[in-house]
């Protein structure tokens, strides 16, 4: 059970990170092909994709909210806390992705 929890947490983290990094790089390529500033576009995409990366990592907002409802109303506060950890993990992944992109483009965090 514990192993599954940490596995899911790491997966959420990496999915969020991958969504941000992949989205930013491919978005930058798209910008290059459509005659726009690739680096500027990448920076903007990094900010825009952050929230969507989190949502994609935890499997959609409605599912998570439903899980919250079920666990809290069912008195299983442990599970609710786990969900919070997953969300934080996804947030960290997305945030680190954004920081990496900022570091790559602006040279600062």
């Amino acid at each position, binding site marked *: 059970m514990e192993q599954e929890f940490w596995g899911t947490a790491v997966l959420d983290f990496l999915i969020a990170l991958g969504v941000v990094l992949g989205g930013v*790089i*491919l978005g*930058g*390529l798209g910008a*290059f092909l459509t*005659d*726009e*500033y*690739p*680096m*500027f576009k*990448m920076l903007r995409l990094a900010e825009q994709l952050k929230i969507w990366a989190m949502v994609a990592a935890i499997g959609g907002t409605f599912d998570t909210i439903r899980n919250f409802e079920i666990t809290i109303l069912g008195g299983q506060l442990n599970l609710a806390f786990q969900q919070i950890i997953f969300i934080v993990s996804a947030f960290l992944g997305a945030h680190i992705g954004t920081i990496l992109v900022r570091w*790559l*483009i602006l040279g600062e965090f």
Partner: protein
Amino acid sequence: MAKGIMQGFKKNRRCFVMFLLGIIMGSSFFLILYGQKIDALLSERNTIYYANNQKYKEILKLQKELNQLSKKGGRTQEQEKRVKKIIVEVEAEQSYITDAVKAQIEKKLAPFQDKSMQWISNNPDILELILEKEQVTIEDSQKTKVEVHLKYVSLYDETLKIWLEVQDLTSSEISNTAK
């Protein structure tokens, strides 16, 4: 042929996917390595485009201005006043001298017909050069010789008006001889 290509794809699916991934990876590396340079070049290009555009606008504006000015110039040239009438007023002792001098001077001034009023007013010395101390011989029995002196010149409403004073040279010559 299409069937053959499809079969080739099916056989080498993995290769095809790897090829696509390779393209994505390669272009991603290219973007990471040269992104800053591309941004700088694009920015430079946009600046040049902007400057070019501004220059083009300036050229159009100047062309428009030039056209307006040339139209205006043409119109002023068309509207430029020209001499349509030449009036010569002669002050002489005898009226026959007046008429004869008037006729001859008018003949002499004929080339001034249809000349620009502005040009004449800018160069009044030409009239003086032509008329001042001009000797006119009157075809009468005595062959009277007179000298013309320019008194006034006026230009108004397409008319060149000249006032002349006439000095009889024959009578002065006679008086000189008598002395």
